[in-house]
């Protein structure tokens, strides 16, 4: 009986005293944190890639909660879906953005671009770029040492052994833009993913004149202007001896691909062209 009484008295007394203390402390240190930040953060992919330009996903969530509208705030890794979720949580409207993807604008694989020197320093594109234009005659092309691979937090880019060029994994790439800033040659660009992820782009950034560009690389853009003439939508411009397709204007008609003499314009994820294939085959036989 003693034990029960003792327990009861001790615990009750303690409870009363502590309750008073707790009350005082609770009154003194009141913190109100917006619970929405947590909710928004839960919506984000949580990859902390920095693609939005803010410090991590938490930073992005805080910015979203603080902001009046979601204008200018976009999570490239999560895309429209995530933005819509966030908008629902906050009761705002998110702007729709065309999904984008990183594109490597160099097609100078080992067999198309001959090596003229041997590179022997630290294996980093950035180091190599401060030293010289690259171990081929093309001083604009991909160095193939994989700085873009290193910065990618989504494992979405890798160097192809055979061609020595980086290849973007379409399913994994979130267009966060880390590789774009990492590339010392400014070869990687973020472009609209396009319908059914069909894209057309000039896979060359060589600003040399036609002749030296062609000498350096078999698939270089030689600024022949044929694509410019072929384009019905004025989407192609040639600047500094290199063509560029504006993805906002391009309607994916593929006319430029046909006329390009060096194959510098690439088309991705299109169904094969039946008529055209037969034509080239016959012409090859004739030759």
């Amino acid at each position, binding site marked *: 009986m003693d034990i029960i009484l003792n327990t009861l008295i001790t615990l009750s007394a303690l409870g009363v005293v502590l309750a008073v203390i707790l009350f005082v402390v609770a009154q003194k240190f009141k913190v109100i944190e917006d619970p929405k930040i947590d909710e928004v953060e839960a919506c984000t992919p949580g990859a902390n890639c920095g693609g939005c330009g803010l410090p991590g996903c938490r930073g992005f969530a805080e910015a979203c909660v603080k902001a009046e509208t979601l204008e200018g705030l976009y999570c490239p890794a999560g895309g429209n879906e995530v933005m819509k979720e966030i908008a629902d949580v906050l009761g705002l409207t998110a702007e729709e953005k065309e999904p984008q993807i990183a594109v490597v604008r160099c097609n100078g694989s080992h067999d198309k671009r001959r090596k*003229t*020197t041997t590179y*022997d*320093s*630290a294996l*980093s594109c*950035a*180091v190599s770029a*401060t*030293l*010289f*234009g690259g*171990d081929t005659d093309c*001083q604009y092309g991909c160095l193939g040492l994989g700085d873009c691979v290193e910065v990618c937090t989504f494992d979405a880019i890798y160097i192809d052994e055979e061609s020595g060029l980086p290849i973007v994994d379409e399913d994994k790439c979130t267009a966060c833009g880390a590789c774009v800033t990492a590339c010392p040659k400014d070869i990687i660009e973020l472009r609209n993913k396009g319908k059914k992820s069909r894209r057309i782009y000039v896979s060359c950034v060589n600003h*040399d004149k036609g002749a*030296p560009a062609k000498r350096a690389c078999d698939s270089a853009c030689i600024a022949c202007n044929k694509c410019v003439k072929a384009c019905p939508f004025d989407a192609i411009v040639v600047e500094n001896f290199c063509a560029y397709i504006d993805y906002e204007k391009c309607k994916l008609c593929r006319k430029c691909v046909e006329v390009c003499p060096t194959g510098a314009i690439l088309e991705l994820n299109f169904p094969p062209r039946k008529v055209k294939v037969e034509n080239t085959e016959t012409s090859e036989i004739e030759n």
Partner: protein
Amino acid sequence: MLKTFPKGGVHPKENKFSAGKPIETIELPKQVSIPIAQHIGAPAEAVVKKGDQVKVGQLIAKSGGFVSTNIHSSVSGTVLKIDNVLDTSGYKKTCIIIDVEGDEWLDSIDKSTELNTNIDISVDEIRNKVLDSGIVGLGGATFPTHVKLSVPLGKTCEYLIINAVECEPYLTADHQLMLEKADEIMVGSQLMQKAIGANKILIGIENNKPDAIKIMSEVAKKYENIEVSPLKVMYPQGGEKQLIKALINREVPSGGLPINVGCVVQNVGTAFAIYEAVQKNKPLFERVVTVTGTSLSKPCNILTRIGTSTIELIEAAGGLPEDTGKVVSGGPMMGKALSAITVPVTKGTSGVLIIPAKKSSRPKTYNCIRCGRCMNVCPMGLEPYKLKNMCVVKMHEELQAERILDCIECGSCAYTCPAGIPLLDYIRLGKANLNKILRSKKS
């Protein structure tokens, strides 16, 4: 005990094969390509166009700003075109390509070899002539000399230091120039002294050139206020800050210039070029280049016109050896490896070094064993192993606190690393990135 800088430094094998070989001239090339960016600062602007006739010494590209300088034709002939040509930087840069026809010099150039010791020229005239003649620091940094000769307001200069150290292994161009043109160098130095208003001229020569020390000391007696000091052989004594520390025991503050401690440092080659420019009216269109290498049959020092293709120099030195693996413009410690041997000689080319194939690859790399050798040889008292790691993980703020910008890129750390780690590669990269960040912060 000979003077030297107190901390760090290495002593690579000297290999001065071309020492004592008289300065030769070679046949004029058929064509020269003269880059318009041969100096630190803004590139010059071409003032000739395709088809123009030019003479030796004629201005072909005009200074493009304060830190920039003129470029003159080194040959006479017709401008073939202005095109992009691969140069020492490893990139294609704009060059003026001239087909050589004969060797017709501008009339104003005094071609006589007579010594002109008259230095009774006004300071402004000296500066103007230096600017007009397109003189840059010939030690390799190619900083426009006229900028260095204008002492900023509020600063005074006590000493003019003539850098005759030539601490790079293999190179002998400055050494040979001192043997043959000691008097001219003295006059050139005095002209500079006058321009900057220095009290005294100090000439630092490393002790592995006893003949040059002897000749220079004897000649120096003829002139006032010139002192020749022999220095202990230690790389990188030719670095401005190290040389000042060695000669007058003053430390240039971090991020400062030699003028902060009352000095201006100029290379001997520059002194000679200034003599020629001021006394002979001859712009800078030729320089002495050492062509050397263990496998080269005839290492030599050649007086070369700017714009000559490197291959012609190599031919003059006995031809490119079969087993060549690497061609370096400059010395083995700080020179740049060339990606083609057609690269033109520029004002900054102090030497052409041929390295055999079996010596041209990097040593095998191991893990860093924290031996601290890189730290002990760093003449700037930095911690290269730490800087390298920080550069790899891009800790740029910490890099600035570790004073990466003080690095003079002498390469002592990478030279001495027993684990063969490419320390300097990454440090250079980190420096470049940090500079980029600082610039963008400023603007």
